[in-house]
Each structure stands twice: as structure tokens, then as C-alpha cells.
């Protein structure tokens, strides 16, 4: 096996060990007795003892860790103390909704961030540049949970332009039930041509997606501006200028394409960031995704659920990075040298 492959696999393995160890710590080192959390507020000592035995809470810690790892591997991610269902099943239901929200947020972020960044670069040092830089800095400075509350109150409650919370109007389940293929409501509604659910979901999606989009839009605008300015000072831009192309043409026809490369790389970073940031947004908008699940788990001290979310997001992140690195090693041998 090539050296770089072993190295990468080793590193990914290390990260996973770290993640699993961390989640184990989360499930066991909770303040309070997990048995009480499961058995209920007025449990008798006998009930507690029974729960302890059932979940192996009376075993030594290293036995518990071994059992924990074995269970994870066999797909038993413990039972949520709060929903009392397998955590893995809960995650399976919550994840598509998060993907939908973050996806919509990123689409908005790109649609706004790129043109605005071009605008700023084109008029560098002048008013449009100034206002774009200012606005993008504001966008990355906004506390998401506060922005979510503010938009919900203003556009949801006071003005009534958008629904206040939820993923779509629940009564549509009766009038035009949705057939599931991907579990992502918008996508399913689109491919099955379910217009009532599609429009309802889009209306519900608008405000939370805007909130999720704020930070990435700001970052993307700043990055596009910076890269365009750098590209415009390259030799090829000088040549194009000498050939008589106008400044706007140079930026959009020649400089933008290479400048988009770092933007694309940024999106992968922002994706993971947005999933976690979306937690706060989902809680406010009652969006049925990972975030609402995680926040409710936190407030109920539902440690198996918190550990499950942590594990899922981290493993996805690690796995995606690993696959990319390995693929890249195949595509572009130069990177193996690193």
C-alpha cells in the first residue's frame, strides 16, 4: 500500500478514535445519573437499579467503552433518553431536513455573494466596494440565533409575510400527501410534482434559509472580491487590458473563472460550518432537522442523542475529507508528496 494512503488512513483512524472517545465521555460523564434520566422524575430505587442493569451502567468503565464501540459498529447508537427511540433512527429522520435547509442557504449565499463580490472588485476603493465590504462584514458579525429571532418576529409575526415555523403546512399531508424518495421534502415535492407542498415548503424555507445564508454570503463576497483583485493584477489581465478589453469584461470573462476556484473550495468548508450553525436556526424556526433535535437533546440532557449528532456530523466530515484526499492522490500524483 502506498505510503500516503497509509498515512491518510492512519490519520482518519486517529480522528475517529478521538470522536468516539469524546462521544463516550459525553454519554458517561454527564452531570447526574443517566439512570434517573431514563427512569423518570419519581423513579423508585428498585426501578433505578433495574435500569442500571439493563443498560450496563453498573459495569466498570472500560467494559462500558468496549460495549459502546461494539454497539456503534453494529449500528446500535443507543436509545435517546428523550424520544426513547434508537438515536440512529432519529438521526435518519432529522438529517434530510437539515440538508434541505443548509442547501437552500448555500444556494442563496452563492447567488448573492458572487455577484456582489464582483461588483466590489470592479469598483475597488469606491462606494460600491465600500458598502459591499461593510455589509459583508456585518453579515459575518451577526449572531445567527438573534437574526433568526428578529426575522421571525418582523417578517413572520408582525408583517405576516412568511410562516413563523415548521417545514410545511401539516394539513397538506391529508390533502396532497407527499411520496418520499429522497426524504428531502423540497426535492420529493419537485420530482413528484406536488405543487402545494412545494410552495408551502419554499415559503417556510425562506426565512431560515436567509439566516443560514448570511454568514456564507458575507464570506463568499469577501473572498470573490479579494481573489478578483489579485487576478486583475496578474500578467494575463495586463495583457487583456492592453488588448483593449474593458475592465468589467476582464473581471467577468477572464478573472472570474479562476477566482471561483477558491470559492468552490470555501463552500465545502462552509457546508460543515452551516450544518452546525443551522442548529441554532432550526431551534428558533422549529425546523425538524438535526439542529432542533440536538438543541432539544441538550436541554433535556439527552446525552445519547447529543453524542449521536456529534458522531454523525464528525464522521461525515472525516469520511468526506478522507475520500477526497485519496481520490486526489489518484487524480493528481503531486499531492502525494505532501
Amino acid at each position, binding site marked *: 500500500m502506498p505510503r500516503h494512503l497509509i498515512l491518510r488512513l492512519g490519520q482518519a483512524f486517529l480522528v475517529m478514535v478521538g470522536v468516539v472517545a469524546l462521544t463516550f465521555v459525553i454519554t458517561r460523564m454527564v452531570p447526574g445519573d443517566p439512570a434517573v434520566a431514563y427512569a423518570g422524575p419519581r423513579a423508585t430505587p428498585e426501578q433505578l437499579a433495574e435500569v442500571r442493569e439493563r443498560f450496563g451502567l453498573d459495569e466498570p468503565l472500560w467494559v462500558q467503552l468496549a460495549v459502546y464501540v461494539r454497539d456503534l459498529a453494529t449500528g446500535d447508537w443507543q436509545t435517546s433518553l428523550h424520544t*426513547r427511540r434508537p438515536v440512529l433512527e432519529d438521526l435518519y429522520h432529522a438529517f*434530510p431536513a437539515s440538508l434541505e435547509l443548509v442547501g437552500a442557504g448555500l444556494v442563496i449565499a452563492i447567488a448573492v455573494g458572487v455577484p456582489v463580490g464582483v461588483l466590489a472588485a470592479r469598483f475597488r476603493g469606491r462606494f460600491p466596494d465600500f458598502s459591499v465590504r461593510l455589509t459583508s462584514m456585518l453579515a459575518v458579525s451577526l449572531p445567527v440565533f438573534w437574526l433568526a429571532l428578529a426575522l421571525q418576529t418582523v417578517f413572520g409575526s408582525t408583517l405576516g409575510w412568511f410562516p413563523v415555523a415548521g417545514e410545511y403546512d401539516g394539513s397538506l399531508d391529508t390533502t396532497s400527501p407527499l411520496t418520499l424518495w429522497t426524504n428531502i421534502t423540497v426535492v420529493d415535492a419537485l420530482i413528484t410534482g406536488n405543487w402545494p407542498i412545494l410552495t408551502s415548503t419554499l415559503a417556510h424555507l425562506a426565512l431560515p434559509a436567509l439566516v443560514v445564508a448570511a454568514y456564507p454570503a458575507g464570506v463568499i463576497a469577501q473572498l470573490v472580491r479579494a481573489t478578483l483583485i489579485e487576478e486583475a493584477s496578474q500578467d494575463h489581465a495586463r495583457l487583456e487590458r492592453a488588448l483593449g478589453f474593458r475592465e468589467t469584461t476582464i473581471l467577468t470573462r477572464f478573472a472570474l473563472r479562476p477566482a471561483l476556484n477558491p470559492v468552490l473550495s470555501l463552500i465545502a468548508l462552509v457546508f460543515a460550518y452551516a450544518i452546525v450553525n443551522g442548529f441554532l436556526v432550526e431551534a428558533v424556526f422549529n425546523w425538524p432537522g438535526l439542529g432542533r433535535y440536538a438543541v432539544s437533546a441538550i436541554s433535556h440532557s439527552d446525552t445519547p442523542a447529543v453524542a449521536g449528532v456529534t458522531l454523525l456530523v464528525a464522521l461525515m466530515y472525516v469520511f468526506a475529507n478522507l475520500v477526497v484526499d485519496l481520490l486526489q492522490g489518484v487524480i493528481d500524483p503531486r499531492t502525494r508528496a505532501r
Partner: protein
Amino acid sequence: MRWHKRLLVAGVAGVVALAASACAGGQVRGAGGSPRPSTGGTPAGQTATQDNEATFVYAPNLDVVTDWDPATSYSNEIIALSNIYEGLTRYNAATKEAEPRLATEWSSADGGKEWTFKLRQGVKFHTGAPLDAEAAKKAIERTMKSNGGAAYIWGAVDKIETPDDATLKFTLKYASPMDLIASSGYAAYLYDAEALEKNEDDVKNGKLDVGTGPYTIDSWRKGQETELTLKAFEDYWGGWRPEQYKKVAFRVTPEITTAWQLVQRGEVNFVQRLNPQLFQQAGMTEGVQAKQAPSFQNLLVLFNTAEGPAKDVRVRQALQHAIDYDGLVAALKGAGQKAGGLVPPGLLGHTTGLEPKQDLDKARALLQEAGYGPDNPELKLTLTYAQGDEDQKLLVTLLTAALKQVNVTLQARAMPWNAQWDRGKKGDQDIFVMYWFPDYADPFSWFFNVFRSAEDVQFNLSYLKDGAIDEAIDKLPELAATDPLAADQAYADLQKKIIQEKAAVAVPYVQTYQRALTADVLGYVDNPAYPNVVFFYDLKPAG
């Protein structure tokens, strides 16, 4: 070519995600339906006997069901289960007495140690089996054996006999008010135990219920917004009138502001709790009824009588005097009512004349006597309370500020219940704040569970150990069963002793429910013995 890598990360993440979610394979979401509520009752011109096709939508703030087993259920599902299952009796908050439900009449003998209940005739379980004495006995015995949830309420029962099909005879180990116990919101349901045991998995998964109540499960989808729908049980012993609601849906709405929006738009019919500000708004909103009702739930501020500085009774009395009772009730803006003693109004043993008042001068003097206060070294006290409870937080904020004036620093920590309780059982704090409510409409649990001494601390979180108090508590059930007047006096004396003499607790307020309903719903009555329960069978739309 770094961007290729990042793009691939995004791509792979997407593929992983899709693979994880792409197994849905064309199933229909929400089969069974998530219905709309009634909008304004029947149109003009139609008679009131028009069949009510509307769905009554209830907006709970938490998951509707955590445990489907009628024996061990001890949580939010009381709202749903009280409409699916019934007990022998039901408590009437207006008359303060148990009323017939599955039992039509009852009597006690032998100083409250023997109880005979006559069962209602013609009652059928949802499984089709008839309710007879044997079935009732089986259900209660199964509940007792489960030893979970509130099963302890049957603790006095020595044996159950069935002299005939319609008679249930309880022999008790010690005198107890069985008619009240049988009205409990938890663990008192009569159910088809045989069918349950045969189909245990179906019952646990909400596919089947084995009750006698007016409603039966239509669909249950844990974790969904519309988690549970109920439908009318055709063969209900009480029969059905056309105008009654035949369908009920529960739409889980954690944020009260959202719930408020939904009731305003008529998307839900009932919101179990608003905050005072929204409640005030509800009172001025057309199309919405604002309903306020007293509860049986009060706040207990328990002082550590066993260890630490609060072991000194003067310190405890000073703490009692430091609480700004009137300010707290003012800031609660209607969500709570000043308490007088341990027992909330509406229950046997409620007393007047024990209403507390803030008196910082007295607190200062008492602290001075005990060696603390402004001229002495600072006193540090720890307090634990429930995480996420706005009202308790308000108490803590006010108490912290008041104590600061008398040179006492309060180190307050909000904790989830299990953590707080765990710590409490170890006696690891000076002040423990919690709500207490009875499982059945009787004040006994405030005394027996909270203030009777215990080697192994459960809810005696003031750690009070007093032989005379224990003795008095142990006499209460028999008194209640035989001589209510003497019981009332005994309850009053005990409260004086615990609050004034021992200063083991301060009781700042009794909670008040502030609810909102759509204006078109008639017949709603709050029953504090069944917290947050709506008996849907009793309702009808206006018009």
C-alpha cells in the same frame, strides 16, 4: 488544484447524505392524515345536530407520548391517555370529590380499610372485550406488579376480590381514601390486561390501545410535528352526540410564541400554556378565548435542615423572610398566585393565615443572631433549580438580589432535573427549589413524600427528621378516610409546624395555568387534578 479537493469534499458529503436518506423508496408521508381544525363551527342555516367533522387540534409543547403502557405511564401522555383510558372514578374540582366513572357507586368500611366498588354495566374495551370485575382486578394487579410510574398509589392494597361480575372489593393494609386514589391521572386506568399482554409490542408502539375511553388511537408518528391523532371509539358506553368532536390531533409546538401564532390563525384549537405577556394579548384578541385556572402545583423552596449554615433554624427563617413574595407574584404577572401554606387551594387541608411576607429587617436581625449579616463575615449559600424554567429563574433572581443586601451570596445553579435530584439526594446544597403536585387530588404526598423522614432520601430534600412530625403524618390517611374535619385540622397543624416552627420550606406561589382556545370551542373546563388534560368528549363547537 486545491479547489478540486474542496469541491470533492462537498460532493462526497452530498453523496453520503443522499445515500443516507435515499432509502425512503416511495412511501407516502403522513398516511392517516394531519387534519385541519374546525374553522368557525357550522355554517349558518345548518342545525346544531349536524355531524361534527372537524378535528380538535391540541398544541402541546413537548412530545405527546413517552410511554404507552397504561400501567407505567407517568409523563406528558396523561393528556392523550386520559381520553383513551378511564379509571373507576374521576375527581371533580368543583365539588372536591371523586365522581363515578367506571364505578357507579362505592362504599368503605372498617375505618377506611375496606372498599367496595360497583362497576358500570355495558362497558366495552376498545378490544371488544367487556369490562367486568375480573378484568378490572387483572388490570390493577398488573399495574401494581409493574412497580413503575405511579404504581405506588396502590401501595395500601392488600388484596382485591371479585364477589361477583360487577363488584370489586379492596382490602387495605392501612386506611386510605381509595375513591380519590382511583381517580388518579396516573396508574389508575382500567384496561384489558389480557389483550395488552398478548400484544405488548403493538401497545408499546402506539399501534393498539386497550382502554375503555371515548377515543382510540388513529395514528402515532413519534417525532413528527403532528405526533398523534385520535378517533372516536364507536361503542363508547357514554354514546356519541353528533356535535361532539370525533377526531383529535396533537401538533407539537415547543415555542410558545409559535403556538400563539397558530391559535390566532385558527390552525390549532388549544394551547396549554402561554406566558403572561401573550396571555394578556390573548385576552384582547378576537377569535381567541383566554382561560386562566389555578393548578395543584406549587413551588417549594426547601432548606437543608441537616447540614451547612441552614442547619441553624434562624438562618432558615431569615431566608424565608428574604423572599420577595409579593414582588415575585407581581413579576409573574398572573402566572402564579401567592401561596398560603403547603397545600394549594381546592384540596383538603388548605389553610389560610400562613401567607408569607418579605421582611428584610427581620431577616437581617435573624442572621445577626446566627452570626452572619452585614456586620459579620459573608454567608455563602448554594441553590439548585430547574433548568429552563422561567418562573423559578425569576425567584432565584429576586432572592439573589435580596440576599445580597444582607451580606448573603447565593450561588444558584440551573440544572436538568436528574442532575439536580441526584445532587439533592446527596444533600449537596443549601436550598433546593422544585415544584410539587399530587398524583391524585389529595394533599398527602406533600407531607408523606416531602417531609416524612427517610433514611434513603427521595423527595425529602429538606432532610427533615422529626419523630413527632412523622407520627402525625402517618395518622393522616386514616383520619382522612374516617374523619375529614379532624384531618383538616391535623393538616393545618402540620403545616404550621413545618413552615413556621421548623422553617424547613418556603412556599412562594401556586402556579396558575394561562391557556388559549379558539373562540368556537364550547364546554372547556380546567381540572387541576389532571394537569393540562382536555377531555375532548366534553367539548363541542359553537354554532
